[in-house]
């Protein structure tokens, strides 16, 4: 999957309350969640972000709550992928389950500047900075996660298993 867009940079420990504040969790409608994506970190984010843009964050992105509304809000806001130095574990799993590409690449986070245009191959994990011409390689996605992606997400993967059992 080839993705292209501008980089929006965030710092360490971006928590799920920043990504989608709990006051909006009385809805699970992706479009509504998207309108408030990253609101308590950057109130303008949802209006500035363009389809294809990427979130680049430092360590422990998505820490805190298990709310799947967090990756849903990011995806529905048009963000094509999140690159971080590391992810909190529940967010990591949720992102795969709902089909939001995420990559771990500390070098890219240190060097890419806000507003740089990036091209990402989510399958191979290569990240090209089209603004500077530099290329980075993200940590490979575990094989098992790859199987879930190839099946079209966790629910499709489970469907296949259920059908085999019947």
């Amino acid at each position: 999957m080839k993705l292209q867009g501008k980089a929006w940079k965030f710092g360490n420990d971006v928590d799920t309350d920043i990504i989608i504040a709990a006051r909006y969790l009385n809805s699970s409608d992706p479009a509504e969640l998207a309108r408030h994506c990253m609101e308590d970190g950057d109130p303008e984010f949802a209006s500035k972000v363009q389809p294809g843009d990427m979130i680049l964050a430092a360590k422990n992105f998505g820490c805190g709550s298990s709310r799947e509304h967090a990756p849903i809000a990011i995806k529905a806001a048009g963000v094509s992928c999140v690159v971080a130095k590391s992810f909190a574990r529940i967010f990591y799993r949720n992102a795969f389950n709902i089909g939001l590409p995420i990559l771990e690449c500390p070098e890219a986070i240190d060097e890419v500047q806000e507003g740089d245009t990036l091209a990402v191959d989510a399958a191979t994990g290569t990240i090209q900075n089209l603004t500077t011409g530099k290329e980075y390689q993200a940590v490979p996605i575990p094989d098992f996660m790859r199987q879930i992606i190839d099946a079209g997400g966790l629910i499709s993967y489970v469907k296949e298993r259920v059908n085999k059992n019947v």
Partner: protein
Amino acid sequence: MPMTITEKILAAAAGKDSVKPGELINARVDLVLGNDITAPVAIKEFQKIGVDRVWDKDRVALVPDHFTPNKDIKSAEQAKMVREFAHQQELSNYFEVGRMGIEHCLLPEQGLVGPADVIIGADSHTCTYGALGAFATGVGSTDLAAAMALGETWFKVPESIKFVFHGQLGKWVGGKDLILYTIGQIGVDGALYKAMEFSGETIRQLSMDGRFTMCNMAIEAGGKNGIIEPDEITRQYVEGRTKRPYTFYTSDPDAEYTQVYHFDTSKIEPQVAFPHLPENARPVSQAGQVEIDQAVIGSCTNGRIEDLRLAAEILKGNKVNQRVRLIVIPGTQEIYRQAMREGLFEIFLDAGAVVSTPTCGPCLGGHMGILAKGERCIATTNRNFVGRMGHPESEVYLANPAVAAASAVTGRISHPEEVL
């Protein structure tokens, strides 16, 4: 092969003799859990799988606790969806308002989780049940949906970190202070994807309520699970309560840990975690002059009977400061009833506090105590992120129930001794 308690539980659940950290396993689950925020998304995903029924109607627990009693129309719609699904699936463990509690106080109390269980819940504080010697971890709604259909889930076996607590706890120091201190030492990603095993003589003397508090906040250090080897204190809690047969696992003496920390608990003061991360823990004596507008005593972290007793001990004969609102939220209907019987409500009301029905409410900025711009709250809850309890420019300070109660009396963050 020597194994930790976490590895032993996961090996048994995967039907294997042994497992190693990093290994991917399919494990049966003993119970899965959702609430009024996470279950609606899970139900929608479950309906896409193409099975009519959940795998076991006795092992899917749904607890509407976050925005209940319904705080607005949208929340009411979400709660209604969960209720209708529970009735349609004939779930035996759906807990209606009036018969419910905050999920992580409720499930252990009701004996629905026990030692050696594997539990996943669509709530990050599911790790609470590790206090019973279970493997319990938070997942998202889609993982919950898959487990509701299959009765199993996949895990990457985590590496373990051992925390050994030595020494006697000071008078006003409890499980909350030990876990805040620990997170302060290792940081909010200090145990990322790892099992946090709490051990040592201090833990052996710690009550079940204190142990629940510690394991509850493992997620605040990024942990996959928190866990404590079961002992006599565990046995007393689960006997006659836990509904399924249980096993007590212990870690082998030569089990492998990526790190081992030793803490002298006799030197640990009551802790306060400053905004906006739980790792910003410092001794209450170093808090300085921090005036507060609100105090909250409750939540899945500190809404149990011991917590309320501790708060009452401080509040007895004292008044809540004129400028402060004190909100007390018992964790379950049972805890509520017990507190009422013990006369704790009389003490809270005399002091000028409000006592609420069980709800997660203010902890996540839902309802029942939202903060305005610039307001500060001391809370016995688990997170002090930006905007966690209301306005993005409000502040939350995390502490134990005695510190929260004392601070409510003085109007600023205070050591319990200040008001006695």
